[in-house]
């Protein structure tokens, strides 16, 4: 940077980078402004930005980098491009059931082909969590703070101590100007003009034959208030990466199931799930014959664990804290947690069955007992007999060595093995196998295995397990099962209030800047000649109308258009 003499002819010493003298307003670079009578560059009132220095150090250079609006615009463009790229394919964070990189790689390859492989390899499948995207956001934040500070403080100082009598060149080179003779007493004319401007809502300062009128200065602070809002917004978004601030997980619950919400002290129960479909008459012609859900709802109860929460030897003691029928857009809300309806799946899940122990020959019923699919009881007393549960296979099958095993952890095809003791039975007890599912395969297994026990001398074949198929209200009385599994989305977002506040502050700033304009009028009378200049940051029509109106009231009739300095030049 060249060493410049920054002292103005009025005697004021200006900082490096000043365009218009801070005191009298005289342009300091004639050549830079173009033609000697061209309108002045009034940005930031011609004051130097804070960071403009003669001998910048490293910290100053970093500061200067971020204080540049040009850099800010590049950063914003890069961020927009990055954000757009992130929308090409579905992002990793939207998949519920995948966590490892291999799973994602496979998914992108299978779903999107080569483009998907490249997309995933470049890390674009998690654009918004990537270091470079976060880095861009942080840089935009830094740029917002530094750009604003660098401009708002000097601007504030410049507007706070304005000189009333400005340099003649400053006045005649404004965007709105008038110059002409004034008859009579100059001070009296300025007085009368002052009254007119006051009627238009200007705050007027007079210094003999010089005048400064100003209105709506506060609109200049709009952009900076907007920036404060945006910074708060950005910080709140970054705050979401603090684990205690943010939770977003899914829980699958069948009807009647209670499960802990992972990493919390809360438990959720799906009391009942209802699905309502649209009636054929309610459907559009292209939807006829399809099952279109009208409503799906989970009647949910939320519990808090109050005792034995971390004791694996006991069941947790739960206290009900909230109950709500969860529908789409009607979440259960408790404390910081919100539980939303995400989706559902029609999946029959066996819960329990009331079984009647019956005599094979006579058909006599000895008694009924309840078998549960989860953690079944070990011993059942039925009539004179004692049934001891010997083994339980929730999803019966045979392993490679033909040993019975369970194929999954879900009770898709449960099998219960009992030893029955009682009167007139074999002294060591008799072995029976019971499959509650009414499908052919399991009934065939049941028959083969029970026959085998008879042949092997382990059973007399005295008993048969029966379920009385009583129906009541369209439901089986003796079998409990879940028809639907509901998927609930559990969310916590403590950053949300800050995001809203940030957005509100930003909106206030935008409104201040959009709907009001900072208007200023300077004038001086030298030897009977009036020189008037006026400036606004937007809507110069309004400013010209103000000035022409006040001039007319003070006895000088001019068409508003003729005041336009830029128009006169062209």
């Amino acid at each position, binding site marked *: 940077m060249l060493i410049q003499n920054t002292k103005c002819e009025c005697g004021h010493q200006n900082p490096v980078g000043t365009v218009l003298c801070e005191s009298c307003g005289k342009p300091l670079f004639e050549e830079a402004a173009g033609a000697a009578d061209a309108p002045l560059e009034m940005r930031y009132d011609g004051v130097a930005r804070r960071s403009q220095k003669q001998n910048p150090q490293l910290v100053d250079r970093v500061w200067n980098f971020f204080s540049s609006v040009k850099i800010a615009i590049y950063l914003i463009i890069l961020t927009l491009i990055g954000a757009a790229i992130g929308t090409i394919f579905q992002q990793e964070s939207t998949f519920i059931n995948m966590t490892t990189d291999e799973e994602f790689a496979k998914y992108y390859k299978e779903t999107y082909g080569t483009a998907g492989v490249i997309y995933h390899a470049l890390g674009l499948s998690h654009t918004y969590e990537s270091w470079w995207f*976060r880095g861009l956001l*942080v840089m935009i*934040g830094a740029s917002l703070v530094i750009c604003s500070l660098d401009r708002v403080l000097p601007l504030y100082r410049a507007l706070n101590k304005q000189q009333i009598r400005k340099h003649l060149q400053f006045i005649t080179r404004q965007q709105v100007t008038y110059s002409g003779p004034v008859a009579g007493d100059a001070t009296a004319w300025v007085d009368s003009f002052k009254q007119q401007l006051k009627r238009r809502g200007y705050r007027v300062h007079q210094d003999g034959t010089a005048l400064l009128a100003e209105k709506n200065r506060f609109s200049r602070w709009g952009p900076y208030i907007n920036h404060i809002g945006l910074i708060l917004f950005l910080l709140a978004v970054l705050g979401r*990466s603090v684990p205690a601030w943010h939770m977003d997980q899914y829980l699958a619950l069948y009807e009647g199931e209670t499960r802990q919400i992972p990493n919390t002290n809360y438990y959720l129960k799906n009391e009942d799930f209802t699905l309502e479909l649209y009636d054929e008459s309610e459907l559009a012609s292209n939807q006829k014959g399809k099952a279109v859900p009208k409503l799906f709802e989970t009647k949910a109860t939320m519990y808090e664990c109050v005792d034995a929460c971390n004791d694996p030897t006991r069941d947790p003691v739960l206290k009900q804290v909230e109950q709500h029928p969860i529908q789409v857009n009607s979440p259960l809300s408790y404390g910081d947690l919100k539980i939303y309806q995400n989706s559902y799946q029609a999946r029959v899940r066996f819960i329990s069955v009331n079984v009647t122990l019956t005599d094979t020959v006579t058909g006599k019923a000895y008694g009924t007992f309840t078998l549960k699919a989860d953690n079944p009881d070990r011993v059942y007393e039925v009539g004179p007999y004692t049934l001891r*549960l010997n083994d339980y*296979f929730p999803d019966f099958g045979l392993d490679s060595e033909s040993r019975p*095993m369970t194929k999954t952890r879900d009770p898709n095809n449960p099998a219960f093995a009992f030893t029955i003791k009682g009167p007139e039975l074999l002294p060591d007890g008799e072995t029976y196998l019971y499959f509650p599912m009414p499908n052919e395969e399991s009934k065939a297994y049941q028959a083969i295995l029970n026959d085998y026990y008879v042949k092997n001398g382990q059973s007399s074949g005295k008993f048969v397990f029966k379920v009385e198929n009583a129906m009541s209200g369209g439901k089986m009385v003796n079998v409990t099962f879940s028809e639907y599994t509901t998927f609930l989305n559990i969310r916590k977002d403590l950053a949300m209030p800050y995001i809203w506040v940030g957005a509100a502050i930003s909106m206030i700033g935008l409104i201040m800047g959009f709907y009001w304009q900072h208007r200023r009028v300077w004038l001086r009378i030298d030897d009977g000649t009036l020189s008037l200049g006026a400036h606004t940051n937007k809507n110069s029509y309004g400013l010209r109308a103000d000035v022409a109106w006040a001039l007319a009231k003070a006895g000088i009739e001019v068409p508003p258009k003729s005041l336009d300095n830029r128009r006169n030049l062209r």
Partner: protein
Amino acid sequence: MGKHRKLVQYLILAFVLLVGGYAIGNSLFTSSAVLAKGDKPPAFKLADLDNVAHDWSEYEGKPVILNFWGTFCPPCRAEMPALQEQYEKWHDQGLELVGINLSEDQITVERFAAEVGANFPILLDRDKKTERAFGLKQYPTTFFISADGTILDVVVGGPLDEEDLAPRIERIMNVRK
């Protein structure tokens, strides 16, 4: 004013570095959920088949094999005898072997363990909590943990036989606390 301005400059830049460092560091170093070699296992507290609670701290400081298994998983079933054999061979020298069952019903677990003659401690996970904390993706998964509490080896899948087990056991037995 000049000195003051410098301070504000430094403060703002320091704040940007701090926030930026946190945000970027967070995205660079988020370790994947699956535990790997060199990690420390998360603490757990589970009940055994006699409904007695066991804490990870009981095993910490000893060479430990943690085997996550289920009766529904064929390779898990197949490797049980080999695990039992190694347990008998090394237990006197301080090796601990803990089988963590994958949230099955107790009776199912009990019967299977009795059938294959597994008498090493078996702990019952509940609602897949421990399994999730270890980031399990496939069954069985076996962690070989040395006395200093570091996971020296992870074997995903199976079944493991003596050839797989012996060298790994020797490795964890050789690490002094």
